[in-house]
Protein backbone atom coordinates (compact mmCIF):
# COMPACT_ATOMS: atom_id res chain seq x y z
CA UNK A 1 0.00 0.00 0.00
CA UNK A 2 1.09 3.57 -0.71
CA UNK A 3 0.34 6.12 1.99
CA UNK A 4 0.41 9.86 1.32
CA UNK A 5 0.84 12.42 4.10
CA UNK A 6 0.23 16.11 3.37
CA UNK A 7 0.42 17.67 6.85
CA UNK A 8 3.35 19.10 8.76
CA UNK A 9 4.34 16.84 11.66
CA UNK A 10 4.78 19.99 13.75
CA UNK A 11 1.15 21.02 13.30
CA UNK A 12 -0.84 17.80 13.22
CA UNK A 13 -0.81 14.16 14.27
CA UNK A 14 -1.26 12.86 10.71
CA UNK A 15 2.23 11.47 10.10
CA UNK A 16 2.21 9.75 13.49
CA UNK A 17 -1.14 8.12 12.79
CA UNK A 18 -0.01 6.98 9.36
CA UNK A 19 3.15 5.40 10.74
CA UNK A 20 1.20 3.75 13.56
CA UNK A 21 -1.43 2.21 11.28
CA UNK A 22 0.51 1.41 8.11
CA UNK A 23 1.80 -2.11 7.69
CA UNK A 24 5.55 -2.68 7.61
CA UNK A 25 6.81 -2.76 4.07
CA UNK A 26 4.46 0.01 2.92
CA UNK A 27 5.58 3.06 0.99
CA UNK A 28 5.01 6.53 2.46
CA UNK A 29 5.03 9.61 0.22
CA UNK A 30 5.22 13.08 1.77
CA UNK A 31 3.56 15.86 -0.24
CA UNK A 32 2.42 19.48 0.32
CA UNK A 33 3.09 20.57 3.93
CA UNK A 34 3.92 16.94 4.69
CA UNK A 35 7.38 17.45 3.18
CA UNK A 36 8.60 19.13 6.38
CA UNK A 37 8.62 15.65 7.88
CA UNK A 38 11.43 14.64 5.50
CA UNK A 39 13.93 17.20 6.80
CA UNK A 40 16.83 16.10 8.94
CA UNK A 41 17.86 18.14 11.95
CA UNK A 42 14.35 19.07 13.07
CA UNK A 43 12.53 18.18 16.29
CA UNK A 44 10.37 15.71 14.35
CA UNK A 45 13.05 14.10 12.18
CA UNK A 46 13.14 11.04 14.42
CA UNK A 47 9.63 10.01 13.48
CA UNK A 48 10.81 9.00 10.04
CA UNK A 49 14.50 8.30 10.72
CA UNK A 50 13.53 5.70 13.34
CA UNK A 51 11.23 3.85 10.93
CA UNK A 52 13.58 3.65 7.96
CA UNK A 53 13.69 -0.14 8.22
CA UNK A 54 9.90 -0.47 8.26
CA UNK A 55 8.88 1.73 5.33
CA UNK A 56 10.10 3.12 2.03
CA UNK A 57 9.95 6.90 2.31
CA UNK A 58 9.48 9.28 -0.60
CA UNK A 59 9.06 13.04 -0.79
CA UNK A 60 7.68 15.16 -3.62
CA UNK A 61 10.51 17.30 -5.02
CA UNK A 62 8.38 20.16 -6.37
CA UNK A 63 6.87 20.65 -2.90
CA UNK A 64 10.36 20.64 -1.35
CA UNK A 65 11.59 23.26 -3.84
CA UNK A 66 8.51 25.46 -3.41
CA UNK A 67 9.18 25.70 0.30
CA UNK A 68 12.81 26.72 -0.13
CA UNK A 69 14.12 23.36 1.04
CA UNK A 70 15.89 22.35 -2.17
CA UNK A 71 19.28 22.66 -0.48
CA UNK A 72 18.17 21.45 2.94
CA UNK A 73 19.46 18.05 4.05
CA UNK A 74 16.83 15.32 4.01
CA UNK A 75 16.71 12.35 6.34
CA UNK A 76 19.04 9.72 4.91
CA UNK A 77 17.18 7.22 2.79
CA UNK A 78 14.24 9.42 1.83
CA UNK A 79 13.89 9.36 -1.95
CA UNK A 80 12.85 12.42 -3.94
CA UNK A 81 10.28 11.97 -6.73
CA UNK A 82 8.49 14.34 -9.10
CA UNK A 83 4.79 14.17 -10.08
CA UNK A 84 5.64 11.46 -12.61
CA UNK A 85 7.27 9.47 -9.81
CA UNK A 86 4.14 10.03 -7.70
CA UNK A 87 2.09 8.51 -10.53
CA UNK A 88 4.48 5.56 -10.74
CA UNK A 89 4.22 4.94 -7.01
CA UNK A 90 0.43 4.91 -7.23
CA UNK A 91 0.59 2.51 -10.18
CA UNK A 92 3.05 0.20 -8.39
CA UNK A 93 0.89 -0.20 -5.28
CA UNK A 94 -2.59 -1.72 -5.45
CA UNK A 95 -4.07 0.77 -3.02
CA UNK A 96 -3.29 4.39 -2.16
CA UNK A 97 -4.35 5.73 1.21
CA UNK A 98 -4.31 9.51 1.64
CA UNK A 99 -3.98 10.52 5.29
CA UNK A 100 -5.77 13.85 5.38
Amino acid at each position, binding site marked *: *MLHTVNKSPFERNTLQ*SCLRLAQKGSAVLLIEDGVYGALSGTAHAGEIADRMDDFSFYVLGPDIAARGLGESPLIEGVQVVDYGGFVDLVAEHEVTNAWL
Partner: protein
Amino acid sequence: MSDEMGYQGEVVKRFMYVNRKAPYGTIYALENLETVLIAAAFDQDVSVVFVDDGVYQLKKGQDTKGIGMKNFSPTFRALDDYDVEKLYVEKESLEARGLTAEELVVPVEVVSTEELREIMAQQDVVLSC
Protein backbone atom coordinates in the same frame (compact mmCIF):
# COMPACT_ATOMS: atom_id res chain seq x y z
CA MET B 1 -7.20 -7.54 -6.95
CA SER B 2 -9.86 -9.13 -4.81
CA ASP B 3 -12.78 -8.30 -7.10
CA GLU B 4 -15.65 -10.72 -6.86
CA MET B 5 -19.12 -10.72 -8.35
CA GLY B 6 -22.06 -9.32 -6.41
CA TYR B 7 -25.53 -10.78 -6.58
CA GLN B 8 -26.34 -8.69 -9.64
CA GLY B 9 -23.18 -9.80 -11.36
CA GLU B 10 -21.47 -6.49 -10.62
CA VAL B 11 -17.94 -6.08 -9.31
CA VAL B 12 -17.76 -5.92 -5.51
CA LYS B 13 -14.79 -4.19 -3.97
CA ARG B 14 -13.74 -3.78 -0.38
CA PHE B 15 -14.18 -0.10 0.49
CA MET B 16 -12.78 1.17 3.77
CA TYR B 17 -13.72 4.57 5.16
CA VAL B 18 -11.31 5.84 7.80
CA ASN B 19 -12.69 8.59 10.05
CA ARG B 20 -10.03 10.54 11.88
CA LYS B 21 -11.80 13.85 12.52
CA ALA B 22 -14.12 15.00 15.27
CA PRO B 23 -17.72 15.89 14.40
CA TYR B 24 -19.16 19.45 14.08
CA GLY B 25 -15.87 21.38 14.10
CA THR B 26 -15.68 20.48 10.41
CA ILE B 27 -18.13 18.88 7.97
CA TYR B 28 -15.92 15.93 6.99
CA ALA B 29 -17.53 13.48 9.41
CA LEU B 30 -21.03 14.23 8.12
CA GLU B 31 -20.20 14.25 4.42
CA ASN B 32 -18.06 11.14 4.74
CA LEU B 33 -21.01 9.32 6.30
CA GLU B 34 -23.09 10.19 3.23
CA THR B 35 -20.47 8.49 1.08
CA VAL B 36 -20.54 5.38 3.25
CA LEU B 37 -24.30 5.06 2.77
CA ILE B 38 -24.00 5.38 -0.99
CA ALA B 39 -21.22 2.81 -1.21
CA ALA B 40 -23.43 0.42 0.75
CA ALA B 41 -26.34 1.15 -1.60
CA PHE B 42 -24.04 0.06 -4.43
CA ASP B 43 -23.63 -3.30 -2.65
CA GLN B 44 -19.97 -2.85 -2.00
CA ASP B 45 -18.17 -4.58 0.86
CA VAL B 46 -17.96 -1.60 3.20
CA SER B 47 -15.92 -1.21 6.38
CA VAL B 48 -15.92 1.92 8.52
CA VAL B 49 -13.02 2.67 10.81
CA PHE B 50 -12.85 5.21 13.62
CA VAL B 51 -9.39 6.25 14.83
CA ASP B 52 -7.90 9.34 16.45
CA ASP B 53 -10.58 12.03 16.99
CA GLY B 54 -12.85 10.08 14.65
CA VAL B 55 -13.97 8.01 17.64
CA TYR B 56 -15.69 11.13 18.99
CA GLN B 57 -18.16 10.92 16.09
CA LEU B 58 -19.74 7.94 17.85
CA LYS B 59 -20.04 9.45 21.34
CA LYS B 60 -23.50 8.95 22.83
CA GLY B 61 -25.64 11.85 23.97
CA GLN B 62 -24.87 14.44 21.29
CA ASP B 63 -27.20 17.41 21.64
CA THR B 64 -26.62 20.06 19.02
CA LYS B 65 -29.54 22.39 19.78
CA GLY B 66 -27.21 24.95 21.35
CA ILE B 67 -25.00 25.27 18.26
CA GLY B 68 -27.80 25.20 15.70
CA MET B 69 -26.33 22.32 13.73
CA LYS B 70 -27.96 19.03 12.83
CA ASN B 71 -27.16 16.07 15.09
CA PHE B 72 -26.20 13.40 12.58
CA SER B 73 -25.09 10.74 15.06
CA PRO B 74 -28.43 8.82 14.81
CA THR B 75 -27.49 8.08 11.19
CA PHE B 76 -24.80 5.72 12.45
CA ARG B 77 -27.62 3.56 13.80
CA ALA B 78 -29.05 3.35 10.27
CA LEU B 79 -25.86 1.76 8.94
CA ASP B 80 -27.14 -1.63 10.01
CA ASP B 81 -30.16 -1.21 7.70
CA TYR B 82 -27.74 -0.72 4.84
CA ASP B 83 -25.90 -3.91 5.82
CA VAL B 84 -22.87 -1.93 6.92
CA GLU B 85 -21.89 -4.10 9.84
CA LYS B 86 -18.13 -3.78 9.90
CA LEU B 87 -17.50 -0.90 12.25
CA TYR B 88 -14.03 -0.88 13.78
CA VAL B 89 -12.75 1.36 16.55
CA GLU B 90 -9.09 1.42 17.44
CA LYS B 91 -8.58 0.54 21.12
CA GLU B 92 -5.64 2.91 21.50
CA SER B 93 -7.62 5.90 20.17
CA LEU B 94 -10.53 5.12 22.48
CA GLU B 95 -8.35 4.75 25.55
CA ALA B 96 -6.37 7.92 24.90
CA ARG B 97 -9.71 9.75 25.06
CA GLY B 98 -10.87 7.99 28.22
CA LEU B 99 -13.78 6.42 26.36
CA THR B 100 -15.26 2.91 26.42
CA ALA B 101 -17.29 1.07 23.78
CA GLU B 102 -20.36 1.41 26.04
CA GLU B 103 -20.32 5.16 25.48
CA LEU B 104 -20.76 4.81 21.72
CA VAL B 105 -24.07 5.11 19.81
CA VAL B 106 -23.68 1.81 17.97
CA PRO B 107 -22.07 -1.57 18.68
CA VAL B 108 -18.57 -1.62 17.23
CA GLU B 109 -15.68 -4.01 17.16
CA VAL B 110 -12.85 -2.63 19.26
CA VAL B 111 -9.60 -3.72 17.64
CA SER B 112 -5.94 -3.36 18.45
CA THR B 113 -3.65 -1.26 16.29
CA GLU B 114 -2.12 -4.48 14.96
CA GLU B 115 -5.52 -5.92 14.02
CA LEU B 116 -6.51 -2.68 12.33
CA ARG B 117 -3.32 -2.72 10.26
CA GLU B 118 -4.27 -6.18 9.02
CA ILE B 119 -7.82 -5.18 8.15
CA MET B 120 -6.64 -2.05 6.36
CA ALA B 121 -4.14 -4.06 4.32
CA GLN B 122 -6.94 -6.18 2.86
CA GLN B 123 -8.90 -3.35 1.27
CA ASP B 124 -9.29 -2.43 -2.39
CA VAL B 125 -10.18 1.24 -1.85
CA VAL B 126 -9.33 3.29 1.24
CA LEU B 127 -10.85 6.72 1.83
CA SER B 128 -9.50 8.52 4.88
CA CYS B 129 -10.72 11.83 6.15
